[in-house]
């Protein structure tokens, strides 16, 4: 029989997620927010739009809805949804005492860490993709599956626009991955689910705050919050890869040390209590 490994842990972590309320709380929020957003657009009297990217297209093309959602979701929605699982995945096991149950089986700690980290990342991917898909569908029902104007002013056909929306969602996952890593780190260090979830969100909000403080605008390119806008490079003609590449290494600077810390803490820690 095949020996258990990271894939075993990953599969069972996904199974456990299926049985937990917080999973549906997060995924429910990821699906509900775009629907509420579209309902708000439907009942809005002022049809001119706001002063943000794609605002004027919200009533012309459903494809603008996921893009606007990405703009506003970065503030707290997606970091919170991501933190719900990443911040909880180790801490809740600690709190419930189940960590000692799984650590006395036949898997090394590193394998358990790997499976859990992958599951937290998978959940974040699922939440973002679900939110984007619901936004596309709800937006298209409200405003039609129509062409879209890129940030460079060129018209993008609806199929090409759809492709760009999903590519944008993928790029959006880069800073989300960094948030996952921060959540995992706090989850292993604090051993407290609530503290880890709230802590992850607070770090995300604090980084945004730094960006708007007077005199600290120079830090903007290196803030995690700024990287949530990297996807906009895809909506330019020609495609601007620079912000995406920049986001990749900046997010790695946030994510990798956090992930390494989480890994080392988990590997070396005493499992007492619970």
């Amino acid at each position, binding site marked *: 029989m095949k*020996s*258990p490994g990271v894939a075993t842990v990953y599969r*069972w972590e996904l199974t*456990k997620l299926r*049985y*937990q309320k917080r999973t549906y709380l997060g995924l429910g929020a990821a699906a509900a927010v775009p629907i509420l957003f579209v309902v708000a657009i439907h009942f809005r009297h002022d049809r001119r739009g706001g002063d943000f990217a794609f605002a004027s297209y919200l009533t012309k093309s459903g494809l603008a809805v996921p893009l606007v959602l990405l703009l506003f979701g970065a503030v707290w929605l997606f970091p919170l949804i991501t933190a719900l699982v990443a911040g909880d995945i180790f801490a809740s096991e600690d709190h419930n005492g189940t960590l*000692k*149950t799984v650590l006395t089986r036949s898997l090394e700690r590193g394998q358990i860490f790997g499976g859990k980290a992958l599951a937290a990342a998978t959940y974040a991917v699922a939440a973002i993709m679900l939110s984007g898909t619901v936004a596309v569908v709800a937006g298209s029902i409200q405003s039609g599956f129509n062409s879209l104007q890129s940030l460079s002013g060129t018209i993008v056909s609806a199929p090409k626009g759809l492709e760009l929306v999903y590519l944008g969602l993928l790029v959006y996952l880069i800073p989300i991955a960094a948030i996952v890593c921060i959540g995992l780190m706090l989850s292993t260090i604090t051993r407290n689910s609530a503290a880890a979830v709230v802590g992850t969100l607070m770090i995300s909000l604090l980084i945004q705050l730094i960006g708007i403080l007077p005199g600290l605008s120079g830090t903007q390119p290196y803030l995690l919050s700024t990287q949530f806008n990297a996807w906009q490079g895809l909506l330019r003609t020609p495609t601007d890869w620079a912000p995406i590449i920049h986001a990749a290494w900046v997010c790695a600077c946030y994510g990798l040390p956090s992930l390494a810390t989480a890994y080392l803490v988990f590997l070396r820690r005493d499992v*007492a209590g*619970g």
Partner: protein
Amino acid sequence: MTDALASSQPPVEVRGLVKRYSDLIAVAGVDLTVEVGDVYGYLGPNGAGKTTSLRMMLGLIRPTAGTVALFGRDPQASVRALDGVAGFVEAPTFYPYLTGRRNLELLAAFDGHGAPTRIDQALETVELSDRASDRVGGYSHGMKQRLGIAAALLRDPKLMILDEPATGLDPGGMRDMRVLIRRLAEQGMTVVLSSHVLPEVEELCNRVAIVQHGRIVYEGRIADLKRSAGTTYRLSTTDDQRAMAVCRAQHGIRDLRSDHDKICFTADEEAVATLSQALVEAGALIRALVPGTATLEDLFFSLTEGEDGARPVSEPEPVEVSR
């Protein structure tokens, strides 16, 4: 079975085990050896360091100093050291939102090596087959304890480490747990059992280690411990005051004290025979001389509530025994 398990290494060998948390020393140099086939009681009052020691044995926490070897393998080095080893520390814990069976499926998947095929048998052994489809969140404490044993059985263990398996169980549950452990021992499994229920330990275990303030104050066979403690006698005479004086002057009479109009002491048979004669000669006629064997509970309290509980390992000093 792995090569190491098949070797002649003892199931548990602990040497100089220390665990320090800042200024607190939880375990202060524990040495113990569990031999194949032992049902080994690990006893001590709350906070004595039992659970901390067991956690180190299972690789859950790192020792500050000392070594643990399970069948000759270091659980700190690799989880492979736990092959053939199973058990739980404190209460067994499960995912409350999963059913009993699902929990076992998860743990069996983490074990591999045929563990999934043992789920039904394990559930049957602990008599949980009919409740296996219920969520663990709805289980009673006793059912969770039994599920803990089932989870351990999935690993087809040669060594079972159980921390307070009867804690929180009602008398029926404690009896069932006792029967289960005895059955496992009869099947040749080595069992390390931490427990506060001393009559249970006395009934189940052949060897014990008694730990106090993080140190072992006795390790060895229960029978040896009892033998070394001698027999306690309760004496009633026609003149207890004079009898007390005779006892005091008599060689071989230990732990002499007065208890509820009776004179209590510890002595071997020869000393008692001499005492009887001396009492008659002194005019204190014997009304009753009742021997009593010390229980493990008596010995436990004398070892752990005595002068810092400090006694040399395997060489217990005579202890005061009361009945």
